[in-house]
């Protein structure tokens, strides 16, 4: 038997956010597709375990991240190198940014590339806390760690991100 129609509707309302998160995790559109589909398949299958009144978006992010660890981390994409010698995760995914001027586009690309160079736990914490605006308690739940660890990861992630961006500036 399928999930409740209201639950399906509410869950699908977060599709774009989940896809964006999946794309930053997998760095591949095809794998992000698979990851999001698998996330929804699990969420709908186990919808009875979701407690109404809690944060559905955080619950979905948690499923997506756990699924990513289960199926996609195994491939160890960090070692993947393209034919030109540049790691494939260092190539921007950015294709549809506002193109008002060249400098703005460059900033978008720098940010995206820098984010992709961060370790997963730093990338995730910035995406969830800063970009998606989840409360720290929910981020802690998604990442299965204390709130204090989330705060410290945010601080260190920003430090690392700043360093990478400065590198881009000097090049």
């Amino acid at each position, binding site marked *: *038997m*399928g*999930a409740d*129609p209201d639950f*399906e509707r509410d869950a*699908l309302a977060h*599709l*774009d956010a*989940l*896809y*964006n998160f999946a*794309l930053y995790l997998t760095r591949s*559109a095809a794998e992000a*597709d698979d990851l*999001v*589909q698998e996330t*929804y*398949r699990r969420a*709908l299958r186990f919808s009875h375990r979701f407690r109404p009144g809690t944060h559905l978006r955080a619950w979905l992010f948690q499923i997506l991240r756990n699924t990513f660890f289960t199926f996609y981390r195994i491939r160890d994409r960090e070692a993947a190198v393209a034919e030109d010698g540049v790691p494939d995760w260092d190539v921007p*995914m*950015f294709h*549809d*940014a506002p193109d008002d001027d060249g400098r*703005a586009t460059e*900033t*978008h690309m*720098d*940010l*995206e590339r820098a*984010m992709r160079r961060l370790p997963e736990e730093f990338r995730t914490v*910035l995406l969830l806390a*800063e*970009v998606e*605006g989840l409360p720290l308690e929910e981020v802690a739940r998604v990442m299965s760690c204390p709130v204090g660890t989330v705060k410290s990861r945010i*601080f260190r992630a*920003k430090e690392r*991100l*700043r360093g990478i*961006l*400065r590198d*881009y*500036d*000097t090049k």
Partner: protein
Amino acid sequence: MTGRYDDLSDEELGRRLVSELPRHAAPPHLARAIRAAIPARAPRLPWLAPTVAALATALVLALFFVPVLPRIVPADPTERLVRAVVSEHTRVVMWGARRAGEVAPASLPELTRETGVALARTLAGDDQLTLVGAEPIYVDRRRGIAIHYRDADGHLVSYIAVPATVTINDRDRVQIDRWRPALLRDSGFATWLWRQGEVACLIVSDRVSESEMDTFKDYFKRLRVATEPLPAY
């Protein structure tokens, strides 16, 4: 020359992440694929819950009234009498005699008055059968008397006499010395049935196997010789 990312505070970096980090919308085919993968729900059956509830209630009521529902009784009067006597015997096996230990010559007149059966002679017990008690009974719409014994192995043996006319099939009869009682079985019990004047006499025991038949025949002989019931009225 000042770089674009010099002196970038935490707040400013956070703001830039929100406003400048590209956000990728899910491609349209993804939403379609997810919707297509959602399994179809089974149609709701609004009548199912009330029907199940009604059936459950009916079942509970049936179970509640089963003990008081009329039992299917055999059409043959002899079989009916045997079944009633076996039922009385099983009651005593389960719950004991109502008047255990009250049989004394002094109480016999009262038993006769209550049962309509007079006992000219009765077995008061011997080396094999110990008298447990005697009591009036009401079986198959007739008054009668039941005398209960316990044998050496602890088995209950019931002797029952009822003023009644019964028909005994010749094929059921068994020769024991000079007598030919009928051996009938009902509900896992063996019963001797014979007529003694105008009284139908029965002996019930759970000794039903072939190996115990000699013992059961011996009980018949002891009781047949030692007991003589008569209609009192």
